[in-house]
């Protein structure tokens, strides 16, 4: 399929009115054509089968099969090498193949998310109700996406296909009073297309019990939360050439650690996007995005809702692409972002920063075997006048149909955040976490190689990567500034160089008898860095597990015209991991000890019954072998046994 055909098919899919409801495609379509269009690897539409940058795709159908509520549920069930653990005071932390939340850029339709807690975005705000598919690109992508894309990019693509009228209502109930309710309403008339999703989910706190004498920190309470998520998207398609989209969203989460002072998290988001495609050779995309993430404490006794954190990001983006007659593509773009941070623990409480970037990329189809993409980007950050020039080169070699060999070199970087520069936080009298205005950007050199092959019902992908990371930004070793200090200081530092390497292998199959299977294995070698003087540092996070696997198999069968079933089994395995931790956090001269965190495996069984085209009833047995960790260490699975979940989904528009 040529690029012009891709653009045409994308346009048609977005403008064709009267199209039936989104019919999600599996990762491997029946015909094994891999004809899903992806955009993340090159910021231009490419076929998954022949994008020069290996892209992992999670389709709407994959998401539906996971029965996921948010991004965290999806990633940990499908992607090997992904682990969600706790940091410090039970804040959720993601480790994605050796890269933490600050080094994996998470985007929604190409837009960044405001707000962080312990370096991670709030994963609960990324609900799956309006998601069309998720694209994951591993490896440095700063040449296209700038700061934070050092380990890769996770791009959540929302639903955009018009639908005359579709209304879905769904609910799910589980252990610990878990309740989930969803509404998705899509309406299209003339040139207008509207999508509204509302999601409400909640679960209670529950206590877990640890064995005697834990060797390191354990948790005793797993905190539930209560979430509201509203998303509205309105698209106006003037004609095949011009489309305007406006969106707005509101997110609210409450978490109760202390009964009288619930913690509240809110997000307000909005955006405008205009896409002008005057012909098949040119395309201009202009967008504005607003995202505000707030944290507050509600004092129940005095009924005061006191905000202590607000991050506001205003972004303008411009992207122009030109396709030459020989299918080569030139992309140029520029972005501007104003970053506002209010934090009561920030020196001066408020800090602001403007950032600007410009980039260019050339996609060169040398011949029918070779395609090479080169990109260069310049980034500037006003605070500290930091600037970076970041290159990336990717090549794809296709010696035979359905066999792709991909190689890439890319540079990634992460500019120090305002928090890392100006933080001043007394952490419960343990130490003062101290910002460092002279931090230098963290830089990574990434090498990637992959091979993927599709034959008949089968698809195989093998990839390997190596990242050399310089000046990693993290907290260092605690120290006393003066002998009279009561509390030690824990400064942000640039650490010594280190390497993260690994690989992944995935085999997928889909047979015509309704059977689908996927098995993925990931190897990650992450050795935590030391400081510039080779001293061990206070690592806030547990390193990645070396081996991990995820697997899925399901059998789908339509028994009668109005009755079908899908039986699925999911499993994930994470190997044990060792971590070096201080014997005494207050006297690091006592050295470090090795902490062994055990391996675990979890399995989930699901049965979905389809009654007519409109109703689905699901019964899910999560953790079917009733696994209970002996010790709830910070990286243990958040389960206290088998969880039976019962759900129902009704497509109201298909009832009649």
């Amino acid at each position, binding site marked *: 399929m040529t690029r012009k055909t891709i653009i045409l098919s994308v346009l048609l899919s977005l403008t064709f009115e009267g199209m039936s409801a989104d019919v999600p495609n599996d990762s491997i379509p029946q015909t094994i054509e891999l004809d899903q269009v992806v955009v993340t690897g090159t910021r231009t539409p490419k076929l998954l089968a022949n994008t020069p940058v290996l892209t992992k795709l999670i389709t709407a159908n994959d998401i539906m099969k996971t029965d996921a509520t948010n991004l965290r549920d999806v990633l940990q069930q499908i992607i090997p090498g992904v682990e969600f653990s706790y940091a410090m*005071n039970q804040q959720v932390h993601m480790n994605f193949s050796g890269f933490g939340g600050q080094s994996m850029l998470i985007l929604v339709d190409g837009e960044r998310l405001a707000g962080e807690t312990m370096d991670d975005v709030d994963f609960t705000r990324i609900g799956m109700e309006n998601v069309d598919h998720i694209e994951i690109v591993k490896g440095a992508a700063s040449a296209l996406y700038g700061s934070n894309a050092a380990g890769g990019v996770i791009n959540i693509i929302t639903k955009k296909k018009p639908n005359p009228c579709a209304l879905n209502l769904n609910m799910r109930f589980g252990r610990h009073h878990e309740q989930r309710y969803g509404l998705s309403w899509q309406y299209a008339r003339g040139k207008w297309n509207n999508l509204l999703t509302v999601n409400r989910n909640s679960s209670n706190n529950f206590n877990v019990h640890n064995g005697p004498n834990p060797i390191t920190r354990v948790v005793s309470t797993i905190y539930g939360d209560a979430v509201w998520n509203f998303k509205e998207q309105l698209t106006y398609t003037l004609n095949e050439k*011009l489309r305007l989209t406006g969106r707005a969203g509101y997110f609210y989460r409450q978490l109760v650690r202390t009964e*009288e002072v619930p913690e509240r998290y809110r997000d307000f988001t909005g955006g405008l996007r205009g896409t002008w495609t005057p012909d098949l050779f040119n395309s201009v995309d202009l967008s504005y995005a*607003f995202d*505000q993430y707030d944290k507050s404490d509600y004092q129940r006794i005095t009924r005061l809702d006191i905000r*202590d954190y607000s991050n506001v990001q205003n972004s303008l983006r411009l992207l122009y692409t030109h396709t030459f007659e020989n299918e080569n593509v030139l992309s140029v773009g520029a972005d501007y972002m104003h970053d506002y941070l209010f934090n009561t623990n920030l020196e001066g409480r408020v800090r602001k920063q403007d950032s600007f970037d410009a980039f260019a990329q050339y996609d060169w189809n040398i011949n029918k075997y070779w395609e090479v993409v080169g990109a260069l980007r310049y980034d500037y950050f006003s605070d500290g006048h930091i600037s970076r020039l970041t290159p990336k080169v990717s090549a794809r070699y296709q010696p035979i149909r359905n066999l792709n060999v991909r190689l890439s070199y890319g540079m990634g970087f992460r500019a120090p955040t305002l928090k890392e520069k100006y933080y001043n936080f007394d952490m419960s009298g343990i130490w003062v976490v101290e910002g460092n205005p002279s931090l230098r950007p963290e830089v990574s050199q990434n090498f990637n190689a992959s091979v993927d092959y599709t034959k008949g019902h089968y698809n195989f992908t093998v990839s390997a990567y190596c990242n050399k990371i310089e000046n990693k930004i993290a907290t260092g070793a605690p120290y006393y500034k003066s002998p009279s200090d009561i509390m030690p200081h824990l400064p942000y530092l640039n650490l010594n160089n280190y390497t993260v390497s690994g690989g992944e292998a995935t085999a997928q199959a889909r047979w015509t008898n309704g059977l689908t299977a996927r098995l993925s294995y990931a190897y990650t070698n992450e050795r935590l860095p030391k400081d510039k003087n080779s001293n061990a540092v206070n690592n806030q996070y547990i390193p990645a597990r070396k081996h991990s696997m995820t697997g899925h198999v399901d059998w789908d069968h339509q028994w009668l015209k109005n009755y079908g079933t899908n039986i699925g089994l999911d499993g994930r395995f994470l190997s044990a991991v060792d971590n070096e931790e201080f014997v005494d956090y207050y006297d690091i001269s006592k050295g470090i000890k090795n902490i062994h965190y055990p391996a675990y495996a979890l399995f989930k069984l699901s049965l979905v019954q389809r009654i007519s085209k409109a109703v689905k009833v699901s019964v899910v047995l999560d953790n079917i072998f009733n696994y209970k960790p002996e010790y709830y260490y910070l990286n243990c699975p958040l389960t206290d046994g088998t969880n039976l979940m019962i759900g129902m989904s009704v497509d109201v528009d298909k009832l009649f």
Partner: protein
Amino acid sequence: MHRVFRPISILAGCAIMMLVTACNGIFDDIYDEASASSSVTTEGQLLVNAASWKDWYYVDFDSLQMYIERKDTAGLLKAQTNFTHYAIPTSLSSGSGDGKTGMYTYWFDVFGKGISVNEKRGFTATDAQPEPQSWSIAFHRNNVRTNGGAVLETKYTSLNELPKNSSYFLGATFQEDEWTENEVWEDQSQMLMSLIGCQGIRINKVLSSWLKIDIPPMPPAFTMNKHVFIVRLKNGKYAALQLENYIGTDGTKCWLTINYKYPY
């Protein structure tokens, strides 16, 4: 072309307008402002910032009563907010001590069965706790001491519900202060090792029960008891006390708002 550029210009206009107006965020009004300084505005209420691990804050009801008798409302309101505080001694200035007064290091099973499981790990003799000449009760976070007094917990949850005077409670059993060496947490510098330096001192466990701290969970769970407590002072007078709130306007825990009636 006009049809094309008009929507684009509207889009750009809206974007610029939103960008300018929303630089520092929107919907500020849904939040409340934490007041910079806290003070009480009514007679009969104490506001004690007892959040410090290292100090005792002293209240003298007789001194407060003198403001009322002088009808010095401004002075009373100020006195109900500002209190004499004395640091907990951490060393011995002379001699070898009595072998009991001092700092006790305890290990608490913070991450296991909870802080009710603990072991003594060390002792350092210190000076005795300094205190003012005249005082009624003293506060240190969730700990309360009386100056030779005793305390009774009632079933009442409002001072207005109380019987007319303290004679109603004459037959009741009042609890005196008791010696403790693992309750008054002074040194949190080894907290990550589950080691806490505790002051050995007498506290009133009945009155201290108005604010209970449990670990786990982490952060600690605070449980407030809103019952009214009757304090029988050393001078034979009675005071009625009720903990109204333990959180300051900035979220600081152990910032105590206390309703009181004295003499009662």
